[in-house]
């Protein structure tokens, strides 16, 4: 907790150089020490798939990323706290040519409408499916409590996750390791 205090006391002038690996690429930048990680990702790295829905409350989950293997809310961290971290954002999940099973599931099952919550939602699903092979509906619902969606009523999101889980379950260990490498 100490770094937050120090950062706040030097508002406006303190800078620090940080180095992170984002979606497999090393990024080294000098950032204001008070800069939020989500702003670093969106504004310094131009990865705008990570969204801001609640301004530093950590409630909406639209800014969820995978950091050192865990789904975290990037609005609740400073960029400097992520120094040295291995990060995956939605841009690292899959491409339109080769969608990740999670993305495929959301597409097939209409798991998104406006799409604003979707990147963060998928990061939480990533965290779930990495560790749980056949999640039950209740497990899926519980895994998504930190991500709010205002459009879908969650029904199709649940189906999307089930679709993805089935795809993942049918994969070989090597294939699984490859798509859950973060």
């Amino acid at each position, binding site marked *: 907790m100490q770094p937050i205090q120090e950062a706040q006391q030097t*508002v*406006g002038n303190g800078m620090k150089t940080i180095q992170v690996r984002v979606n497999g690429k090393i990024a080294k930048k000098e950032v*204001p020490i*008070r*800069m939020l990680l989500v702003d670093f990702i*969106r504004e310094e790295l131009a*990865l*705008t*798939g*990570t*969204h*801001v*829905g*609640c*301004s530093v*409350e950590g*409630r*909406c989950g*639209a800014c969820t990323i995978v950091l050192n293997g865990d789904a975290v809310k990037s609005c609740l961290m400073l960029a400097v706290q992520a120094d040295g971290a291995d990060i995956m*954002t*939605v*841009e690292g*999940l*899959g*491409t*339109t040519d080769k*969608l990740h099973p999670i*993305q495929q599931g*959301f*597409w*097939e099952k*209409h798991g*998104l*409408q*406006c*799409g*604003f*919550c*979707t*990147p963060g939602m*998928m990061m939480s699903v990533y965290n779930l499916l990495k560790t749980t092979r056949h999640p039950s*509906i209740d497990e*899926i*619902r*519980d895994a*998504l*409590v*930190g*991500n*709010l*969606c*205002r*459009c*879908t*009523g*969650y*029904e*199709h*999101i*649940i189906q999307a996750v089930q679709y993805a889980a089935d795809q993942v379950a049918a994969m070989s260990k090597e294939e699984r390791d490859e798509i859950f490498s973060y």
Partner: protein
Amino acid sequence: MTSVTESKWVGRSIRRREDPRLLVGAGKYIADYSIPGMAYLHVVRSTHGHARILNIDISKAEDYPGVVAVITGQEVADAMKPMLVSSIIPNLGGELQIPTVYPLAIDKVQWVGDPIVAIIAESKYIAEDAAQLVEIEYEKLPVLTDPEEAMKPDAPKIYDNWKDNMLWKGQLASGDVDKAFKEADYVLSERFYGHRTGAAPMETRGAVASYDEFTGLTIHVNTQRPHILRMAISQIMSMPYDKVRVIAPKDVGGAFGTKAPIYREELLISYIAMKLRRPVKWVENRMESLMTIGQERDQIHYLELAVTKEGKIIGLRDRLIADSGDGRIGVYLGFVMPWLGAAYLSNAYDIPNVQIDVSCVVTNKPSLTPSRAFGEFPGRFAMDYAMHLVARELKLDPRDVFEKNIIKQFPHVTATGITHDSGDYEGAFRTLIEALDYDRVRQEQAEARKNGRLIGVGFAMGAEMSGLGSQIFVPMENQPGYGAATVKIDTHGMIQVFEGDSPQGQGHETTLSQVVADELGVTMDDIYISYGDTFVTPFASGTLGNRGASYTFSAAVLACRKLRPKIQQIAAHLLGVESDGNDFTFANKEIVWKKDPSKKIALRDIADAAILGPTKLPRGMEAGLEATAYFEADIAGMLSIGVHGAVVEVNPDTGDFKILRYVVVDDCGVPINPMIVRGQVHGGVVMGMGNARFEKYAFDEAGQPLSTTLMEYHMPSAADVPDIEVIEYNVPTPYTPLGSKGKGEGIPGPVPATLASAITDALNIPGFKILNLPITPESIWRSINEAKVPT
């Protein structure tokens, strides 16, 4: 009017075309826009519910490094007209007092969150820092948070130059109501309250504005109605129409009505961009958003029903009091929602004698802004739950009371003047009863009771607007109700469709493509959709009120049908066959002569002739292949029915309840994409559950908002809601070319009465009633205890 074309695409649950970009994080929302040299706007807002501004000291903020400008209210006001110009004021009769408003408060603030000072800085961090340095001195004034208090003759006035605090007052009435009440066997009379709650989309509002003296103002803003905003900015700021360009982003993170009004910040950022000659960006933070937009409902209904002993409702009387807040938003003014709620109050029921007196009162809260189930949420709760109370009092099965009152003949015009075009409400209702397995649930209920478990079943209906035709929309919002679309075949034989509306997640790129693909015999991949840019798209009222599948898509169909004869004439000419211009089929991107299918030509070749090689056209034919059409239904109103049912289990000791089943039977005419329709139903039900159970914009007695974070304003998460079963019961409307209707807008409406009636049924306590929203374990527990105390 309905004509059949080959349907290969309409009616299929096709994956959405917009999804790939959204799934890889390449969606472009307003916060993702940036322009070189862009500065950032932060708005300093009132901390008081009602106060005079004695002094504003901006000197420290101005001196803060990185601050570009600090702007206060008078300066902005001097540059424009009062915001509520006539084109964005409804014309609904009754008595209306119009507040004067400019983008920033000048000498008085009316609610906590009222914008006062604009800070523009090189970064959003600096703008927020500098905002803390603005010093505002206030003199507090009495705060009004209760509309019934604010209506009293001796109440302090919120607007000094008004005669009282009544924003709008009017009556909707028809038939002989007094006679109906005299003849009634039973009169139900209750006060119902539907609290302040609403939408709160995941993406807040935002805009990026820029200005230069040659092209004028360009504002990217996540509005639902770019054309109306363009018109408003031009008029309010006295700018030539050609110097105002409003562009809604391709991707908007939900709106549900909240992004439909004309807001003060939109005028503010336009002024700032003009003044500074610099691009400016503003993205509302969540706290501002929860303090400012998406607050709807907030109606008290003193509802009376005159009923025969058989359960037929012969008269309805209601005194509706709405807490309109400050009423200072364009188009809606905080009273159009309650007005429409009154007009739709009798819902799907045939009630001949109705009198509704509506009072919309200003208070020291932000203005009501539209939210899905526009104005209807409290009224649906009151009306449909009241019918269950009627059944209980008359010892009738509520199923029979509903069946007795449901509209059976179409078209049907209600006593409040709403036209129901077509449908089978009774069939939809019966389908729900079957799906619930109503009789078996009753048996199970009896069994469960023996084991001490309280299970109940409830239901409610919602006839939701399917767009609003000009006959209603012109008086209601001073805007046309027609749908507008342009269909243009390009040099490559691909089809570009332009719509004047601007969606926020509804999937128009998919569904509009499905519609056009069928009309012109192409695949969806041959079609691209353009929307959002007012310099390019035809004028239209915006994506709201279920207008898409009913009005806008119908316009696209008509535009295609305008093009078809010309395409056939060119085909006949190029193929050298005789044609009356209507003897070709459109399939596989080809135009095929019906008399001899071996005579066919690719649409691309026709486009080539019409656009690039006009010498190949029949003599005298105009070049080009494009058409714009405006669709207006040949009936005053279209509605679509939804019937909701729930089975719940209640714990009488805690008041908590669990939803065991939630079923919706839904009609949208012809569904263009059933998967998308189901998604709308799921989302609407869950918003209704959030509104009915968890979400509340709370204020203390000083008007301080207590729900300014998503922790306090509790929107449901995945773990808060049950599975939702959806059953399609579609009846095509004869009033649109495809038989399609809109779906999504009104779905939250039936949720509170469905839950309330199921809970009441489960408890089976005489005298137990749920009269106030939200329905919480605490409110149920209290009602149980009140019912148990003999009066």
